[in-house]
């Protein structure tokens, strides 16, 4: 017979329960989201007008670096792992994750990694200041001493991600309820399965590149030093061989969340389920052969530029298929616009805009003008903020009633949506303009030519930040004083997760469900 959660702090420290671990992942990523957001606001405050006012260039660079690293590795990735922990077993009718003890470990090493990373702010010489892409030799020969701590922290994050990915693959392949064939799995399960394979393929590459840095810094090797026979561009090739699949790691699970929410609120099954699976797999495959489009200006030979340009343009095809499928799912549905649906629709629109700028960036000759400008900053924030962040938010509103058995306040949630939506566009849309007008990224001060756009962006950033404080309030208010939610929660939601009680009992599917 199943027993309940252990009393006290031990419940959280020693838990092997997928729901507890999922909850911890989600709260951890929420905390990191605020830390990374705080750093972003320091950046936007400094860029509010030309001149140096608030921080010195040295500290500004530490802020851009930590903002990027914390948002990518601390906010987005753990949030999706949290959603996976909570939802995968519920969606496939499994009692828990396949490897529950490893699950505990892969979460609990994360707080240590990020404490170390944030702790570098207080080290002599300051925190890492070489951008989240940490190009050598700025991150090796010319780096502050904290780079060694940074490398250790990245190793721990990588280990956590790899363990998480192994666990997810083992769970999905082995623990599906009888009758749940691969092509019957919800799309969130499919996208996470593919994401997990991407993680296993590229996290070791990241570990490799930081280890090469460590060797260059402390053990006299010259991987990235031309004077010793190495090549600084080698760093970029290895980094982006990890880095490009990494951006799909942050977006594929989002596709899964959106593919669950739109059919529910359109009251119509997802259009083109199997083409969605194939499109996801194609995107994953293409992600391995496009990495050098981040490096069009490093001086590759013409043939290399052309191959990477063509391959990159191809990504538009499967991505387009996904967007068309979502829109066709909406077509002739009977839609209602609760908060999860609003965030999902905004996802489709804004992610598509990010896709357009991505297509423009893929055109190598034009990229000579766009590269390393605010146009790129606008592009990747359009795919990551409405992409990853909005889909996570949509997922939280969608499944929160199932997690805690309480319903959130719809009016507050819609207010949150509109402030976030408007704030996001005010922040990031003008960056297209400042970038095209010639403003390089990662600079603490700039010519007054770009002053207007920057001021607008900064105002939007604070608005967007305020929306997230409201989000935190809404979540806490729901947990403590939301009205009880029904088991079904949403009128036409489908899937095994809605067949269990709300809140989901501590142990579910001890007996495999009938499909």
């Amino acid at each position, binding site marked *: 017979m199943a027993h309940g959660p252990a009393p006290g702090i031990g419940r959280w420290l020693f838990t092997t329960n997928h729901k507890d671990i999922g909850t911890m992942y989600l709260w951890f990523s929420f905390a990191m989201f605020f830390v990374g957001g705080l750093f972003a606001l320091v950046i936007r405050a400094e860029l509010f007008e030309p001149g140096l006012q608030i921080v010195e260039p040295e500290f500004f660079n530490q802020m851009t670096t930590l903002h990027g690293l914390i948002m990518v590795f601390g906010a987005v990735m753990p949030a999706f792992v949290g959603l996976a922990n909570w939802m995968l077993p519920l969606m496939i009718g499994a009692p828990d994750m396949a490897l529950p003890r490893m699950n505990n470990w892969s979460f609990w090493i994360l707080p240590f990694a990020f404490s170390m990373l944030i702790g570098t702010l207080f080290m002599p010489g300051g925190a890492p200041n070489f951008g989240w892409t940490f190009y050598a030799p700025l991150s090796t020969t010319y780096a502050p001493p904290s780079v060694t701590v940074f490398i250790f922290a990245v190793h721990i994050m990588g280990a956590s991600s790899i363990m998480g990915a192994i666990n997810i693959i083992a769970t999905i392949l082995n623990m599906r309820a009888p009758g749940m064939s691969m092509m019957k799995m919800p799309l969130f399960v499919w996208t996470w399965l593919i994401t997990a394979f991407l993680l296993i393929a590229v996290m070791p590459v990241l570990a490799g590149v930081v280890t090469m840095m460590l060797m260059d810094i402390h053990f006299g090797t010259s991987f990235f030093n*031309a004077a010793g026979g190495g090549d600084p561009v080698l760093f970029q090739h290895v980094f982006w061989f990890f880095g490009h699949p990494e951006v799909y790691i942050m977006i594929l699970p989002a596709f899964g969340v959106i593919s669950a929410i739109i059919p529910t609120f359109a009251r119509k*099954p997802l259009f083109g389920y199997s083409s969605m699976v194939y499109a996801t797999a194609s995107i994953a495959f293409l992600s391995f052969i496009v990495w050098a489009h981040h490096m069009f200006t490093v001086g590759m030979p013409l043939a290399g530029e052309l191959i990477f340009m063509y391959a990159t343009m191809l990504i538009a095809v499967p991505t387009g*298929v996904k967007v068309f499928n979502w829109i066709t799912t909406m077509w002739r549905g009977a839609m209602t616009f609760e908060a999860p649906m609003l965030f999902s629709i905004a996802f489709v629109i804004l992610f598509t805009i990010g896709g357009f700028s991505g297509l423009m960036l893929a055109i190598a000759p034009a990229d000579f003008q766009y590269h390393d400008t605010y146009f790129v900053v606008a592009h990747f924030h359009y795919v990551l903020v409405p992409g990853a962040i909005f889909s996570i938010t949509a997922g939280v509103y969608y499944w929160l009633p199932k997690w805690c058995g309480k319903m959130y306040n719809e009016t507050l949630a819609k207010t949150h949506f509109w402030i976030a939506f408007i704030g996001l566009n005010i922040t990031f849309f003008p960056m297209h303009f400042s970038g095209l007008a010639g403003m390089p990224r990662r600079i603490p001060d700039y010519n007054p030519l770009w002053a207007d756009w920057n001021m607008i962006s900064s105002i939007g950033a604070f608005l967007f930040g305020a929306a997230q404080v409201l989000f935190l309030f809404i979540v806490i208010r729901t947990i403590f004083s939301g009205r009880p939610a029904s088991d079904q929660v949403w009128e036409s939601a489908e899937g095994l997760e809605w067949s269990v009680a709300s809140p989901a009992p501590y142990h579910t599917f001890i007996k495999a469900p009938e499909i």
Partner: protein
Amino acid sequence: MRWIVSLPCGLLLFLLSLSTHASEWQLNMTEGVTSISKEVYSLHMLIFWICCAIGVVVFGVMFVSMFLHRKSRGVKSANFHESTVLEIIWTTIPFIILIAMAFPATKNLIDIYDTEDADIEILITGYQWKWRYDYPADGVSYFSNLSTPLEQIYKNAAKNQHYLLEVDNALVIPAGKKVRLLVTAADVIHSWWVPDLAVKRDAIPGFINEAWTKVDKIGTYRGQCAELCGKDHGFMPIEVKVVSQQDYELFIQEKKKLAADIAEAANQQFDFDELYRRGESVYQQHCATCHQLDGKGLGIFPAIAGSPIATGPVKEHLNRVLNGAGAMPAFGEQLSPVESAAVVTFQRNAFGNNMGELVQPIDIVEFKQGR
């Protein structure tokens, strides 16, 4: 709910007004002044309009659906969920559009890579945080530093039009000549970018990249370093002066004469005050960004005040300044013997170091020759 329609539409309209308001609030990419930059611009506009057209169709269908197919209008949802024909159609059409876009892009890229038959060659070297320009055929070489005064950066003074986009010594090239640019770096990776020329090339230490430009219009064109290169990445602008062939020859002669004067000065003896005075200005220009104006250092950049190097043996001090160590650049090739002697003298006597020694230009020359 009207918001959901009006906001993205407003954004799109805003975008469509791109070309009309471009002069006041610059919204769009510059057309530039070279054949390449104009090609890049028209390619950029082509893709932009294609994206807009796709956007109008895709978002249009979406908004129509959101308006018509809502439960509040009493509609019943349909149940269709598969169509192989549709999937094939919307896989094929984007594919054809992409192929159409690939043709002009490929042609443009081939032009960018055609660095053959140049009239002039210039070597561009990125340093933390300045550029060096070498004209190998004429033996001319000089550094180009930010010339915006600190008072403007820290708000005390009004900012001028070319704030942070102005330098002391611009790159000078003749109009109507094809110039091959060889780009490299001395320390970390930089990137030499001038939007009006549509040239952006990474400057990579230990490797030389090629680019080219040919500008017909006389004028000044400005750009910035485009690759994060450390603390003052935002403060290493690029200024290119395109001049007539005549003015270009005058410029080369002037630079040659200046080099001869510097070589002659290396044989002179200076008194302490003169060295100290010259050293102070060299310090402010080359050392203060890291070691700070007050000599107290910053973060990983050590203090000069009371430093074991600046108060230790002269030879080690010269070695550190001229040959560098770790993140400290080698200034031997950046500074003339007079400047090196002056700055070492200054550092050994300023900030309370008071060593009372002076170093002459001839000491620098001898040190470099290993004596």
